[in-house]
């Protein structure tokens, strides 16, 4: 079971359909999610949503509570939420992008982009960004895996030790042709041990 913690976004259901290609998915509002819902999941996905992470104290608390106990993936707002909790700051972007297909610079050696066809083009919907000057405040286990090729905007991260992942862009957008592969990489990695157990049984 994959659980999406929803921030009442208008793209959550696209994400649900994308994730449903890999496992059963439940979408639960951030205000009504229970500990049992989270415990039943192999990975907890923080949905996109309007505003900034500070608007969602419940989600921030869930992240802190579950960190290290369960794999987690943040999309857009969720990406910002995790990195802000880890010490970076959020600022307005110089160039706001909504509904824009953009080619991004990826680390092909990262788990997130393993086997992903280049050039990687993704759909972006964000006004805010992680301030790249504050990335130094993150613990070294957080690796930035992609960037905007023109402006210094971090666009994804992975923390393989704690099985935490984040994408600033929208893998579920029809503009993200490699969205399925990227999600597949993240899910396989976050379920690695279960995956191995499953394969050897």
């Amino acid at each position, binding site marked *: 079971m994959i659980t999406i913690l929803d921030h*009442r*976004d*208008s*793209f*959550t*259901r*696209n994400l*649900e*359909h994308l994730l*449903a*290609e890999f496992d059963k998915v439940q979408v639960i509002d951030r205000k009504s999610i229970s500990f049992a819902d989270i415990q039943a999941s192999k990975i907890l996905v923080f949905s*996109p*949503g*309007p*505003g*900034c992470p500070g608007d969602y104290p419940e989600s921030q608390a869930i992240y802190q509570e579950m960190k290290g106990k369960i794999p987690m993936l943040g999309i857009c*707002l969720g990406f910002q939420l995790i990195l802000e909790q880890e010490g970076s700051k959020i600022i*307005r972007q110089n160039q*706001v*992008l*909504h*509904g*824009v*297909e953009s080619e991004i610079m990826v680390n092909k050696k990262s788990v997130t982009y393993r086997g992903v066809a280049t050039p990687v083009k993704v*759909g972006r*919907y*964000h*006004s*805010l960004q992680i301030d790249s000057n504050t990335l130094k405040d993150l613990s070294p286990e957080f690796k930035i895996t992609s960037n905007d090729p023109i402006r210094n905007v971090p666009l994804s991260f992975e923390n393989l030790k704690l099985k935490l992942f984040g994408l600033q862009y*929208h893998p*579920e*957008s*029809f*503009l993200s042709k490699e969205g399925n592969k990227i999600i597949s990489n993240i899910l396989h990695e976050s379920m690695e041990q279960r995956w191995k157990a499953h394969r050897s049984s």
Partner: protein
Amino acid sequence: MIKLRHRILIEQLSNLHANHLAIQTVGPSTQDLVIYFDFEESFSLESPEGTNIWEKFEDFSSPTGLSFSGWVGFFGYEFLGSQFGVSLKAPRDLDLPPIWFGRPQSIIRLESENTIIESTDEVREKEIKKILGQTIIPSALANPQNPPTCNLNFKEYESIFKKAREAILDGETYQIKISQRFDAPTRLNPLAAFGKLHKSNPAPEAFLLQTPSFAIVSCSPETIIQKEGRKITTRPIGGTYQRKDSSFDGSVIERFLQDPKEVAEHNMLVDLERNDLSTICEQGTVEIRKFREVESYSHLHHLVSTITGRLKKGISLRNIVQAMLPGGSITGCPKVRTMQWIDQLEPCFRGPYTGSFGSIADNGDIQLNLIIRAMLILGDHCYTQAGGGIVVNSTPEYEFKENQTKAQALLDLLK
């Protein structure tokens, strides 16, 4: 059923002297119309929060046996908002029901060369045929007293625009639709207005809804829900260019398709509509069938996509309405937060504007549009509302002018 081997004129319907009358555009051509009247049962609501209406739609106990058996009417924007879970507080400054639906007992179909009359009562069928054969008593279209006024002048619009833009920069909304309302102290004949509009600006979702207390005349281009069996289709429109002279269509359309602002706006809408369909459709069935096609109308070009899906089993009318409405192209994105912003920023409620008109058949088939490009006729006044999407690189001058352009086909009726 009586079939006449010619197509009657819309004006001839005035001889029916119907209290309630609806006209819907159906099928791929903009010319095929269905006229619904002799409403036996109808209902409206006092407040947008009423919820027991869904049972009425699911009562199939009295089928009419006509080629259409079901409900015809409209949902207002505020009602749809409340069903979606967003309570809207803008002042209801016009006296209108939040929704109205009725069950027609008589139908006239206007096809290219035929007129088909159907009624539950055979005597009535013959009577309708006779009435339609009578000479038309010409009625004046409008009696303009004064030119229309708008509820927002440029300065006021600009001030709202700036707040909307700040909200975009903060990530509160990615795109927000802000509208203006034009008010003319003019008495307009609804049927004559529909006839004129249908000639000057035929559109795939044009309609008329006439009741004793109000009427809506529209040349809406946008289908929000087309459901046949378990197949559901939506045709979102996002992106607008002015059309001043059709001889420049080729180069204007080329520029339109390459305009990054229009393209981004449309992309966002496609993802939003995919999302709404995904709420009610089986996983893996939501598909973009046609992407970013240009449709041209009398004053405008639009970008349109067609997205389809296969409904999950057990999905009800209520589930469909809650998932798809209000339509994303008239709110912006993401819907919930953006609708709250619209409610704060716009000076008046929307009522039928950006609600949905159409037909809901007893067999479950649905055709619902978005009520845009519409004139609301209420007593001695006419109102038309027009709005556009504000995105980060919009300019207030351009958007203000575009709203005027969108209202123009309707304002032309008042001349």
